[in-house]
Structures are given as C-alpha cells and as structure tokens.
C-alpha cells in the first residue's frame, strides 16, 4: 500500500470512527431507554408478524393508502436499500480509488440498478418537495418541517454526489464494466472536464459523498429519520389480532412491590418499551391527524402531536432517568399531562382507531392515550366531572346511568323473552343486551327488533336480565381499569356459572370486550354480533326478508368495522332489505359517531363529531341511515336532528324486521337476497 493510500486510510478511519462512534453512542442510549421501558406482551402470531415485515415494510403497503406519497416513499426507500452496497463502496473508495467491493463492483446489472435507483431517489425527493411546498397538506401542521427538508436535502445530495463520483470514475475508466451499464453516470461523465481535473473531482466527490453519508448516519438517531432503523421492529410488534383489546394492568401480582405497580403512564418512568419505540418511529407524517374525527371537528387532539409530545419528553428526561436507575442521583419524572399532552387533549379521544389504522409505521396511539387516562383517573382522580359521576354510578349500580338493575328487563315488556335464572340450563345462545339498549329509549329499538327476529327464526336464546352488569368497556376506555376488571370478573363469574358458551350482542363495544378482552379474565366464549347472526339466519332461509326500494346508507361502527373487521355481514343484510348507497368514509376508514372512549358521558366541546358524520350520511342522498350499534343509533339520530339531515336512523335489525314483514305480506318477493 502506498503512502497516499495509507494517509487516506488513516484519515478516513479516524473520521469514520468519530461519526460511527457518536452514532453508536446515541443508539446505545436509545437502546438503554427501550430496555428500561416497562414490559408488554407481544410475541404471539409470529408468522403474521413476519408476513407484515414483507408487506408493510418491504412492500410499503400502508403508505399506499395515499398513492402519490406512497410512490414518493417507495422510490426513496427502495433507492436506499439498493444503494446500501454503494455506501461501503464509497467508504472504501475514499481510502483509495482502487479499493472497492470485489465481484459486486464488477456487475454491470448492479451498476445499472445503482444508476436507476439513485435517479429514483432524486425523483422521490422532488415529489416530496412538491408535496410539501406546493400542495402543503394540512397533516403536516405541527410537524417539524425544517427537519424534513434537511433529510430530503441530505438524500438529494447523497444521490447527486454518487452520480458525480460514478460519472468521474467512468470518465477516468476506473469501472470494471462497460460504460453502457450505467447510462446516467456515463452521460454525466461526458460533461466532466478532462483529467487531471476529473481526478480531483473523483476524489472530492467520493469524500464528500462518504462524509455526507456519515453525517446523515449521525443525523438519523437525533431526528425523525430514526424511523428507518426502528420501523421493522415496531411493525413486528404491532398487535396482530384483537385490535380492540387493551392490555390489562395487574394490581394483584404478589411479586410486584406496591410502588412498582403500573397504573398507566404518569411520567416517562411508566412508558412501555413499545410506547417508547412508537415515539422513536414516528415520522410526523400526520396521516393519523388527518384521519382523527376529533381533530377534524376542531378539537385539540392530534394523535401525531400526542406521540411527538411524549417522545420529546422521553428524550428530554431520558438521561436523568437512566442515571438514577444506575444509582446516580434521583429522578422524579415530570407529569406527562399537562407537560407533554394537555388534559383536554387526552379526553378528546374517542378511541375510534382511525389513527392506528392509517399509521404506516405501527404506532398504536390508543395505547398511549388510554395509559395517560389510566394514570389520570386511577392515581390522580383527574377527569371531567361527568365522567367521574358515570364511573361512580357504574361501580354502584353496574350500569353507567345509575339506573336500577331490575329495570334491565323493562324493554322486554310484551315480548315474552326468557330471562335466565340461576340454575337454569344455558340457552343455545345468550343474548347479551348491554346497558344502552336496556336503558335508552332509542337504543332499545334495535334490541327489540333483534329479539323479534331471533324468535321468528326459532333461535333458542335468553337474556341475563338483572344479573347482567355493564361489560365495563366505558370504564376501561376512560382509564378506570380497576372498575373495569371488577365488572369483568363479576360477569365472567355469572357467565361461567350459567354455562354460557355462545353470545350474541347488538352492541359492538360489548362484542369487542366480551370477545377480545374477557379471555384475559378467564371468560372464553364464541361471541357474534347480531348482524353476523342475522345474516346467517337469512342465508339459511330461517328469515325471509323482501327487499324494498328504500335507499339505505350503512354506517360502519368503529368497534365493528375497524377494530374487529366485521364489514360484510351488515352489508349483506342492507342489500337484502333495500338499495345500498355507500359513504366515502366506510369500512376500515369509517368515521366515528363520537360516542366512543367514554364520550357518551363527557360533555362535547367545540364541533360535533356526530353532526359531521350525519352530514356525511345526508350527502349520499339516501333515505335511511342504517346502523348496527346502540350508541351510533343515539349519536347519529341526535346528529340528524341538529343538522336537519332528515334521514331516518334505524338499526339493521329494525330494517330487517320491516323487510320480513314485507316478505310475509308478499311471499312471492321474499327471496333471501345474498349478493
């Protein structure tokens, strides 16, 4: 090795060690933070998780929910993946023009790919700038735009210097393959002056390129570009099934000392490792913010800003926390609410999950918000007064309205429904009524319709009556995990004693909690939503609806369509009873009615989510708005009235009853129509 190469080598190695050393130090710090995070269980369903690495990470599937940004990101992502070997090549090349990766550097096809994908990166960067500076999407409000520009500029510069370097190598004849394999670099070579200038350009460009890469490498863990390194990890550990299932807290673990019990997130000390990684993975893209119904109706809540706020506080205080854990000093975390997230913001969330659904990098915003609520409610008793009143009523009377449990059977007057008494044999299916249908005059219509249909079809069912307690969903979504678990254990005991194995319910929240969350407390049942059971009965011919001419638009409930993937059966029924018209935001992209997250009992501030959804329904021009949830029924009926929408709001079951009546009057028309 000649002295020039040696000098280059030593210099480059020194620089490389500095940058990589600083990079490693930062990464080790981040790694220590994550290791310090509280635990959360995420190792089920490995095949599905691996599959997601392919579709979501490599395939960028979620990014294509927005096509143009999807293309932009695909170009840059795949560009950098393909160009990874050129990084090593440039580092070697900085030491000496003759140093490179053996074999690969001789492959023409690789040179071609490098040229094309580097151009792709430039194209992607151009599209990105066009979006940010031209279109200026609202979802970027609150994001740190300068960081984004810096990253894009880095990427562009890295691409450009790569072209200049390759071009100068072509001009100097340093490549071991025909120039035709790298058309762009070759074309560029034609523009370069003759040697010795080109030699200087070659050295300069490779060094600048290599330094840019090192600088960018160091920039990554200090900015949102960190997502590139953690997204595969975060996507791997995202929930696979039971998306509506929140993770239980344990209050009674004998091995956990009292001051170590986790009551949700109060300071960064209580963040789980997944929550920390969520923050590190956030790209501030704002797709969640765009999908959020609270943000849309003018409230403070932006899921993006919540994640960013929590992340920033973690970074601000992380060093002190780790130092204290290692024995140097003490650490009192600053309360996350209101420092990172305002009280109002925490309570604005309706837990609809639109944010989680849109997020391309596997962030689970609901976990963050509910964990913040858990600390506010269970430790600090800091929550809106109406919510607190509801929780107390729930505790005392087992329903959120403080009504008498014996009144749970009032809605059955005249219907002759069997009430399951202690000691009775269990029915084929237990009809879990839920609190809203039992106590609300509008919500009960769907339950009455369902009961009539089940009787008509000859289904053997019964209700628990006064022995039914609230599933606890409103308590859990509001953060009162303690009351939720008390109700869950009570219900599991009742259902266990009664020998219930199959449950049908009209309420998606009950459906979600009984099916996805009760197994954590020993309650395992086959739980179906009433639309699923009714669709089955129609298919089997046990119910014969005759379709009418009514135009019907169907509203997907969040806890059915998004959290639990029940989308097709209600549509089967709607198609069997009338003329369906779809809203733009439907199925997995449905827009919440506004009742979730305990909001049925919290005062609504600013704009109204239910009114917005009512407007969306009215805009379809349909005559009827079909729903499959007692809360959606009440919220959207209110929304229709206050916006003057004029659509009749009816549960799918009620529409089915009408269709079955029609079928009786005109037997010839009653063919079970299954699309």
């Amino acid at each position, binding site marked *: 090795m000649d002295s020039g190469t040696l000098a280059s080598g030593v210099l480059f190695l020194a620089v490389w060690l500095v940058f990589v050393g600083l990079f490693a130090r930062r990464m080790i710090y981040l790694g220590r933070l994550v290791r310090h995070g509280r635990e959360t269980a995420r190792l089920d369903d490995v095949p599905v998780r691996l599959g997601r690495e392919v579709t979501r990470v490599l395939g960028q599937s979620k990014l294509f929910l927005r096509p143009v940004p999807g293309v932009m990101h695909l170009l840059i992502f795949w560009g950098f993946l393909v160009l990874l070997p050129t990084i090593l090549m440039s580092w070697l090349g900085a030491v000496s023009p003759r140093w490179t990766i053996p074999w690969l550097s001789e492959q023409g096809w690789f040179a071609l790919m490098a040229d094309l994908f580097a151009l792709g990166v430039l194209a992607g960067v151009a599209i990105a700038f066009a979006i940010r500076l031209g279109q200026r999407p609202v979802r970027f409000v609150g994001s740190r735009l300068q960081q984004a520009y810096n990253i894009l500029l880095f990427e562009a510069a890295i691409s450009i210097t790569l072209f200049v370097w390759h071009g100068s190598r072509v001009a100097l004849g340093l490549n071991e393959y025909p120039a035709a394999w790298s058309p762009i670099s070759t074309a560029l070579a034609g523009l370069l002056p003759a040697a010795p200038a080109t030699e200087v350009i070659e050295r300069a460009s490779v060094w600048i390129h290599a330094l840019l890469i090192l600088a960018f490498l160091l920039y990554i863990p200090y900015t949102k570009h960190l997502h590139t390194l953690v997204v595969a990890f975060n996507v791997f550990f995202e929930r696979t099934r039971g998306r509506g299932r929140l993770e239980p807290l344990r209050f009674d673990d004998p091995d956990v000392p009292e001051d170590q019990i986790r009551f949700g997130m109060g300071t960064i000390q209580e963040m789980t490792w997944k929550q920390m990684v969520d923050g590190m993975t956030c790209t501030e893209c704002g797709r969640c913010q765009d999908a959020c119904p609270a943000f849309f109706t003018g409230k403070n809540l932006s899921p993006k800003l919540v994640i960013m706020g929590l992340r920033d506080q973690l970074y601000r205080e992380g060093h002190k926390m780790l130092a204290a854990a290692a024995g140097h000093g003490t650490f009192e975390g600053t309360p996350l609410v209101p420092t990172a997230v305002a009280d109002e913001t925490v309570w604005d969330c309706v837990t609809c999950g639109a944010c989680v659904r849109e997020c391309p990098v596997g962030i689970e915003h609901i976990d963050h918000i509910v964990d913040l609520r858990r600390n506010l409610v*269970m*430790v600090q*008793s800091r929550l809106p007064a109406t919510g607190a009143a509801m929780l*107390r009523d729930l505790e*005392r009377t087992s329903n959120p309205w403080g009504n008498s*449990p014996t009144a749970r059977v009032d809605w059955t007057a005249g219907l002759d429904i069997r009430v399951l008494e202690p000691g009775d044999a269990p029915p084929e299916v237990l009809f879990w009524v839920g609190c809203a249908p039992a106590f609300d005059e509008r919500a009960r219509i769907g339950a009455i319709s369902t009961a009539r249909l089940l009787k008509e079809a000859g289904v053997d069912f019964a209700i628990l009556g006064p022995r039914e307690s609230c599933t606890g969903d409103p308590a859990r979504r509001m953060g009162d995990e303690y009351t939720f678990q008390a109700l869950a254990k009570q219900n599991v005991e009742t259902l266990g004693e009664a020998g219930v194995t199959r449950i049908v319910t009209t309420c998606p929240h009950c459906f979600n909690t009984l099916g996805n969350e009760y197994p954590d407390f020993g309650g395992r049942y086959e739980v179906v939503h009433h639309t699923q059971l009714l669709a089955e009965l129609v298919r089997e011919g046990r119910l014969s609806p005759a379709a009418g001419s009514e135009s019907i638009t169907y509203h997907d409930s969040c806890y059915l369509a998004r959290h639990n993937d029940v989308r097709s059966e209600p549509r089967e029924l709607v198609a069997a009873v009338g003329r369906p018209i779809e809203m733009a935001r439907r199925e997995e992209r449905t827009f919440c009615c506004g009742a979730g997250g305990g909001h049925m009992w919290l005062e609504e501030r600013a704009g109204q989510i239910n009114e917005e959804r009512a407007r969306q329904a009215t805009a379809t021009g349909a005559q009827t708005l079909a729903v499959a949830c007692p809360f959606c029924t009440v919220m959207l009926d209110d929304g229709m009235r206050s916006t003057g929408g004029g659509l009749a709001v009816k549960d799918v079951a009620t529409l089915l009853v009408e269709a079955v009546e029609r079928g009786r009057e005109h037997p010839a028309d009653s063919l079970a129509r299954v699309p």
Partner: protein
Amino acid sequence: MKVLVCIKSVPAVAGRITLTADARAVDTRHLGFTIGPHEECAVEQAVRLVEEHGGEAVVLTLGPAPALEQLRDAMALGIARAIHLVTDGEDWDSQSTVEAIVEAVRADEAASGRFDLVLLGNEAADSGGYQTAVRLGRSLGRPTVTGIKGLTLVDGVVRCEQEVPGGRDVYALPLPAVVAVLEGLNVPRFPSVPGRLRAKSKPVAVSTPTRPAQRLELLRLAVPEGRSKQAVVLGRGPDAAPAVVAVLNDLGVL
C-alpha cells in the same frame, strides 16, 4: 387529632325499591352497596381534618359482613383503620346501635386516647332516624350539633355552621364533640386505585355485639302507592308549549 367517623352501608337503590317476600327488608339481590351522601361528606371531612391537623382518623360501622366493603372504601380515601361491629343484617334501632357504638368507642379510647371529634351523617339514607348523633353525644357526655354544612377547627373549639331560613347559625363547641353533617359540607374526593390497594391491608377491628330487644321495632315495609292519577301528556316536543302555558295559567303561576 383523633377523629371517628360513623357510617352505614345501605343498598344503592336507583329508581325503584323492591322488597323481600316477607316485606321486612329491601330486596338487595341485584343491588350494589354504598354509604349515603351525608356520610360521604363526613368521611371526607375526617380525612381533611387529619391532613390539616395530623393524627389519626378511624371509621366505624355497625352492619353485616359485606359492609366491610364500605369500610375499605373509606380507608381508600385516607382513613387509617376501621372498627366493624358485625351484625347478621337485621335492622337495629338507633338506641341499640348507639349502645354498641359507645362500647366500641370506650374500648378504643381506653386503648389509644380520646376522639376529639365524632362525625356522622345527619340521617341514614335508608332509615332516616335523625337521632344517632344526638344519642351518641348524650351517652358520651359530649356536646352535639346536627345539620352542619360548614366546619372549622380552631384552638380546641369546633365552629359549625347550620343553614336556617335567612342565613346560617354558628355553633362553637369545645372539644370533644359530636357533629352530624349534611351533604354540601365539602366535595368528597374520589379514591385513587393505589389508595384502594393500600386499604385492603389496613387494620379492621371486628366484634360481634348482641342485638338487644328493639324499642323502635320495624314491623314491615311497604312501597308507597304511586300518585294514583295518570299523568296528562300535554304533547310532544316544542308543539306542546301552548298546552303547557294553558296549564300554567290554570295553576295561577303565569
């Protein structure tokens, strides 16, 4: 400062009350339990007094075994320990109740000092006897005041405010004293879950007093008949306004 607060576990009746077959008790099969709103304020006041003046607060109840839950709820708010006088669930009249409480109070005071203040709700949510505080004060020989909505402690004297037509009367009682309070005295706090968990291991002194012959003896209960007249539906929605105003006119309140 040593404060005693006496509570009574009552069923959380919501809209309607149903009775057992023998009509001697409320049917509690599907009901949860709680303490009355006056007593919630008494418990809160006890906790605040100890927070402000130091010392210890004790909660006591005379009731069946499940009433322990209400004692734990009170301890979850910050009360240090409990005394449970366990009964079999039968109704105890006020004189019997007070006799048992006095015995427990004397035993506790002999062991750890005098209670500066005994707090109770003005009347129990269910029996509404309006006399337990007064009897207790008499038996203990301590001044007693009822119907209190404002309470401050200054230099060994408890200053109590009672609402009367035209304003508030103020009573200044030397300690030790007995005070019966009304809802509105303060805004009770909610228990935190860490508080509830800690309460599970706080000490409860249990004894089983014998129920004496009742002097005010409950014979049977009855649900009063609803107003026998059917309500007149004046209309639906804003269209009912003229009918309403006509009724207002007839009643002479327009």
